[in-house]
């Protein structure tokens, strides 16, 4: 691994080529895993050395739970580009997904009470 400091050949985040390579030109994975912006991603195992840098970064970052939105922010990748990458890591068993609390039409009372108690402490 080279030392810290920006790689002069690195492409800026959001560069279309970079996005294309990351997703392998595929923006819609066949097996659709429902990933919400607030699905929490947690690493399950030591990262596989054969992974692409972005994949490795996710695996390293998610030692502790992180939402899809946070990962997107830290990697500076749009959510639509990140989703297939996460789907791949999920299918390889590198990470696990903790889905958001399901809220049907209306959230349940216990959930709301928990949130109110939490907000009260702010």
């Amino acid at each position, binding site marked *: 691994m080279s030392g*810290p400091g920006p790689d002069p050949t690195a492409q800026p985040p959001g560069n279309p080529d970079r996005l294309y390579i990351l997703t392998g030109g595929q923006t819609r994975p066949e097996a659709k895993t429902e990933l919400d*912006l*607030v699905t929490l991603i947690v690493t399950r195992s030591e990262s596989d050395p054969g992974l692409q840098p972005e994949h490795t970064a996710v695996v390293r970052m998610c030692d502790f*739970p992180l*939402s899809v939105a946070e990962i997107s922010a*830290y990697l500076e990748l749009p959510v639509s580009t990140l989703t297939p990458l996460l789907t791949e890591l999920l299918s390889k068993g590198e990470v696990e997904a903790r889905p958001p609390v399901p809220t049907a039409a209306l959230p349940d009372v216990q959930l709301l009470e928990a949130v*109110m108690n939490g*907000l009260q402490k702010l």
Partner: protein
Amino acid sequence: MDYKSSDGYAGPRSEDILPASATAAVKVVIVGGFGVGKTTLVGSVSEIRPLTTEETMTQAGVGVDDLAGIEHKTETTVAMDFGRISINEQLVLYLFGTPGQERFWFLWNGLFEGALGAVVLLDTRRMEVSYDVIGRLEERGVPFVVGVNAFPGAPRYPMSELRTAMDLDESVPMIDCDARDRASCRDTLMALMRYLYTLTTVSTESQ
């Protein structure tokens, strides 16, 4: 500063790490026009410095600036700021700020799905944005409260007048919200939770 690892990607600072016990998250959306204070509100209550996530929308170009034989596409990138509040060891609340203008509604699908509800931040200088937003939320069946972020020097109207101007149902809570003030923002979120609570208990009783 963000922690930069050897692979060059920033990750959360050590103080921004969630406990391993965090099992699930919920979200609330803050919606309003440009400059109304969405990010300020998020920053006032968030335990992390607000982060930015991006979403892109690709549209086939419509004849403008077309180069012969080259397929022309335009890509719009929209940034959304968000923050986080740990409710307890297991539960995390995320707050997303999203622009209310119609051209950004493409963001709304993933965003409002599963959201507890929304806070509409009202800018009394530009009421029309909020008017559209409210109509759209009603259509989607997203419960919301209205926070009136009173800017210094902005025209002040009685709540009743604002309610009438927006054609807002009596049951929808309206609250003064100073987006810079943590307690005021917390109270606005509490107003949303109480409103949701009322809606939930009423609908349970009527079953």
